[in-house]
């Protein structure tokens, strides 16, 4: 027993954040001993992943967990509440963090380590983990800012012209988005008088619908939509994500947009469900346009990484499709639907959970696959000496192992079986058709088709065809591609293999993950156990 009547296992909730901040601080102190950094970073990320998995297993066994900071009584203190959705996101984040850290050891040179690559990496992971674990809306804002400042540091590592250009746009637009989030949080606090998510979910549900909460829901949609790079607000992403180091791009593409999606699901689906139901049609259009713009943008690119930038956006649209299903109960059900009986209500609610489960599954898959694609692209660009599709080629012959892994990830991102992208799309299509939105289902399939073409184009140009003669297309060399020698396979192929294990496992046997995402989705649609964990057991 520890002080406050807590068991050691209760501290698991804060351990992901504590580990990240601790290792970040220690590595900052060791800034003169950059040769030691990998020996701290790899065990640090390994510890983070182990703690994440333990937390996930604990939540799977015992339901949502809560810890109140400073032993305040709910709803007054800052709560860390982790339910199934948060636990799944934080575990997958730790997973790709570990793979990226291993990759970074082989690809980040001494100068960039001296600039503080690994400390920034830990601090950003701390922000990401905190955002997935917190149960307090203002605290969520603070974690957004923590991960943002970490990402700023990683983005401008190297201070090249391109990076300064991309970082300027990234920084301003993300700062405006988080400020909008803070503004909205201020309004919601003024309206409900609380910041605890469980408390807001209860109070907002009891409030009269006079338009104020609807305005707040729209503002949240804009703020988080901007963070997630949803369609009309997506332009900062293709302007910046191809400028930093490949491993940094990989983490950004995998994690940062997904934090926005996570916040969108948490706030709109759990805290403001009736308002979300009113917005459902708008979210559906945003989702459809986001996935199409992403897929079409990917078709038009001539650079490997800028092509992947657009695939990130397309994935965001598919995730948002699960948020566009009409609500059956609790929302503004019109009289006719109410009169036709409970049956429609029950199926509608079930469809909402099916769609949301597909969304969460797709988000987890997208975190892993996008990270893996950028890492594989980084290896391909180093072998070819360029990332321009005009002058790449012949990698299938030079690096068959890498080409095979790339093919797996491209299949997965296009949603082709037997890899992890297939099953969540099945769930989303089933959910959208079940909720009587056939056009949205058609959009999901169409964007999958376009993504397949874009992926095939990438593979044909960079891997399959013979390398073009250097005369017709002079490759532009960036300092990153002229790294000192080839890193050993342990720091290049191993992280890709780790990520491929998830992609194949979730594709061939999706039951285990689907069971968890189903629990996560029903926990968000009906937050009773979440609320109980905050007000019942939290000490």
């Amino acid at each position, binding site marked *: 027993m520890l002080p406050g009547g807590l068991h050691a296992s209760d501290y698991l909730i804060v351990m992901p954040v504590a580990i990240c901040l601790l290792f970040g601080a220690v590595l900052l102190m060791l800034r003169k001993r950059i040769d030691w950094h990998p020996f701290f970073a790899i065990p640090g990320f390994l510890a983070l992943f182990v703690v994440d998995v333990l937390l996930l297993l604990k939540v799977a066994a015992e339901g949502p967990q809560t810890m109140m900071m400073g032993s305040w009584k709910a709803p007054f203190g800052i709560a860390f509440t982790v339910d199934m959705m948060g636990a799944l996101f934080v575990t997958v984040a730790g997973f790709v963090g570990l793979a990226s850290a291993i990759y970074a050891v082989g690809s980040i040179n001494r100068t960039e380590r001296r600039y503080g690559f690994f400390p920034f990496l830990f601090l950003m992971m701390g922000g990401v983990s905190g955002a997935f674990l917190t149960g307090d809306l*203002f605290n969520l804002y*603070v974690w957004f*800012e923590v991960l*943002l*400042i970490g990402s*700023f540091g990683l983005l*401008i590592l190297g*201070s090249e*012209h*391109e*990076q*300064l*250009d*991309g*970082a*300027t*746009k990234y*920084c*301003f637009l993300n*700062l*405006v988005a988080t*400020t909008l989030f*803070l*503004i909205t949080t*201020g*309004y919601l*606090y*003024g309206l409900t008088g609380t*910041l605890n998510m469980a408390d807001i979910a209860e109070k907002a549900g009891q409030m009269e619908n006079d338009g104020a909460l609807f305005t707040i829901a729209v503002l949240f949609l804009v703020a988080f939509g901007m963070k997630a790079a949803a369609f009309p607000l997506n332009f900062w992403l*293709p*302007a*910046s994500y*191809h*400028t930093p180091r490949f491993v940094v791009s990989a983490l950004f593409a995998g994690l940062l947009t997904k934090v926005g999606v996570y916040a969108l699901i948490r706030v709109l689906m759990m805290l403001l469900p009736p308002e979300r139901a009113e917005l459902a049609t708008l979210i559906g259009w945003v989702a459809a346009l986001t996935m199409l713009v992403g897929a079409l943008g990917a078709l*038009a*690119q*001539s650079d490997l990484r800028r092509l992947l930038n657009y695939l990130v956006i397309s994935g965001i649209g598919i995730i948002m499709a699960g948020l566009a299903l009409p609500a059956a109960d609790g929302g503004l059900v019109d009289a006719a639907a109410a009169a036709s009986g409970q049956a429609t209500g029950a199926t509608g609610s079930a469809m909402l959970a099916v769609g949301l489960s597909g969304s969460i599954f797709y988000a987890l898959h997208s975190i892993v696959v996008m990270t893996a694609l950028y890492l594989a692209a980084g290896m391909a660009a180093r072998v070819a000496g360029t990332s321009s*599709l*005009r002058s790449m080629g012949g990698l299938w012959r030079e690096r068959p192992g890498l080409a095979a892994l790339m093919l797996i990830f491209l299949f997965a991102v296009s949603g082709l079986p037997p890899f992890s992208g297939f099953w969540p799309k099945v769930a989303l299509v089933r959910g959208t058709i079940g909720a009587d939105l056939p056009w949205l289902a058609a959009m999901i399939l169409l964007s999958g088709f376009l993504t397949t073409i874009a992926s095939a184009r990438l593979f*044909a*140009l960079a891997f*399959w*065809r013979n390398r073009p003669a250097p005369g017709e297309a002079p490759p532009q060399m960036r300092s990153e591609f002229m790294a000192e020698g080839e890193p050993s396979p342990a720091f290049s192929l191993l992280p890709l293999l780790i990520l491929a294990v998830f992609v194949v496992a979730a594709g061939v046997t999706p039951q285990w993950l689907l069971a968890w995402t189903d629990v996560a989705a029903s926990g968000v649609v009906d937050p009773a156990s979440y609320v109980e964990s905050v007000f019942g057991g939290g000490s």
Partner: protein
Amino acid sequence: METALSVLVGCLFTVSLYLLLSKHIIRMLLGVVLLSNAVNILIFTAGRIVSVAPPFIPQDAETVSDVANPLPQALVLTAIVISFSFFAFLLVLAYRAYQDLGTDDTDEMRVAEPENDGLPPLGY
């Protein structure tokens, strides 16, 4: 009092949005400063201005009434620290960008996304 502050917040939002829509980074920086200060006043007003008495519970009492709301002050303090550090970072970033790219006009910053990039490869 709350009405006056709300109007002030509205004015600050208007000015900061106008500045943020500018092409020049230096104006956008001013917009960011005004925006973060507007948010601080907004949170302060959202917590209601009821009293000026400090929120201390006397030693022999269980509860206390008619005191200022302490929570917005904590929130505003956090927001001030965060926005100040971000502004410091943005200032340095804008200066470096101006030095390296030779312009503070965001329309002319096209290094990361070149304008005349040509068509992507059309055949295999």
